[in-house]
């Protein structure tokens, strides 16, 4: 399916533009019943995808630990209170 592959790559803003276009088309009111039902379903689907996109990521605050030229790991970032000085590398 063309769509399934696409959803991941299409940026959020493009979906927003599509939604706005759908609103305009519907508000102009020149569509046939079939067309407006079709476009309505498309709009609902897009807004669902958008919401999914907004909720997709999980909150995660991590700190990168570089262990060598090509080696690294991550650990949870813990806020150490400190001055705006640097004692890390």
């Amino acid at each position, binding site marked *: 399916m063309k769509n399934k592959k696409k959803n991941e790559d299409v940026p959020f803003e493009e979906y927003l533009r599509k939604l706005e276009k759908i609103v305009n088309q519907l508000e102009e009111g020149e569509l046939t019943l079939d067309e407006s039902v079709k476009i309505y379903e498309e709009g609902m689907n897009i807004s669902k995808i958008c919401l999914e996109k907004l909720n997709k990521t999980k909150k995660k605050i991590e700190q*990168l630990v570089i262990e060598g030229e090509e080696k690294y790991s991550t650990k949870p970032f813990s806020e150490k209170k400190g001055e705006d000085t640097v004692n890390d590398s």
Partner: protein
Amino acid sequence: MNNYTESKIYTVSKINKYIKKLFENDFNLQDIWILGEISNFKLHSSGHMYFVLKDKESQIRCVMFRGNNCILRFMPGDGMKVKARGDVSVYDKRGEYQLYVREIIEAGKGELYLAFERLKAKLKDEGLFSEEIKKKLPLIPQNIAVITSPTGAAIRDVITISLRRFPNLSILVVPSLVQGTFAAQEIAKKIDFLNKYFKDLDFIIIGRGGGSLEELWAFNEEILARSIYNSKIPIVSAVGHETDFTISDFVADLRSPTPSAAAEMTIPDKNNLINNLSVLKSKITRAVKRNLELKTENLYSVSRSLKYQGPENKINQYYQYIDEFSARLNSRIMHQVELYEERIKKDSQRLDSLSPWAVIERGYSICRKIPGKEIIKRLNQIEVGTKIEVIISDGKILSKVEKKEAVSN
């Protein structure tokens, strides 16, 4: 002026103009730097700056016009040690000489400042600052990295503000030196590292809180500028306070005045987005509903008009038509009849007036031959002895012709 020209008299303006020319022709007084401390600084409402530069033994008046001072990177003030660049010349209205300042840099920062200007010019020429190569940041970032000190206020601000705006964000903190000799190199290396192993990052914020020019210097170094330029991942530069501009700011895909501002500018407000979405969604629903209502309305009006055109209705219509028609026909006929009656009446009146009886009534008479009832109009129609009848209004007289007598006109 020597003894021989004692008799020569100058006006005040002439002599001042002459002195002014002397100043202006002396290259030792043109385009020079003067080191000193600012004193008696006044920013006039016209935008021009007036002050005095002094050292322990001496002082010189200075003026810096608005056109020049608008590009200053700091606000001069009393007690500041500065280097001022300009021409010494004469203000002939008052007969005073002064330094016409074109540029001021804070003393001690001179070398760095010049290095900054040189590198800026060089990288600009190479096209590292050009707007066309700047990458666009996605509207909804999901994975971002922040290269900064893990203990500074900057990282705390970025995390707090980012999560407030978008609670389910993934932030990778990449610790780095942000000041000192090795800072630029280290930040550059980390940008390269992220480009290699974290290709999915939406963008990288590099930055630190405010500080002196020296403290911010890492962000003015060429090695970092080149790394930002080469990064495939968009870079957001977030260095210091509002007024500090660094080379990194110019090369980065987005410049923000402070780390907090970087978070505000790059992380969307999730609640806003959700609101926008539901507004769009309800707009769509409303529009479809309205379309449906319109279509239903249309259907009703079409079916109504169909009913009017059905066969039953047609027959009724015909009946009505016929009724109307016959009524119209009746009235037409009546009218015609009336017209005829009128005409007949008129005609009969006319007939009356032409009737011979009407003439006879008035005393005329008609003569006819008895056999044949031929009306006698000429003498030659009759002989003596011809039997005739004379018709008068109430009867006739039978007679016989006695004599014919012609009437001569």
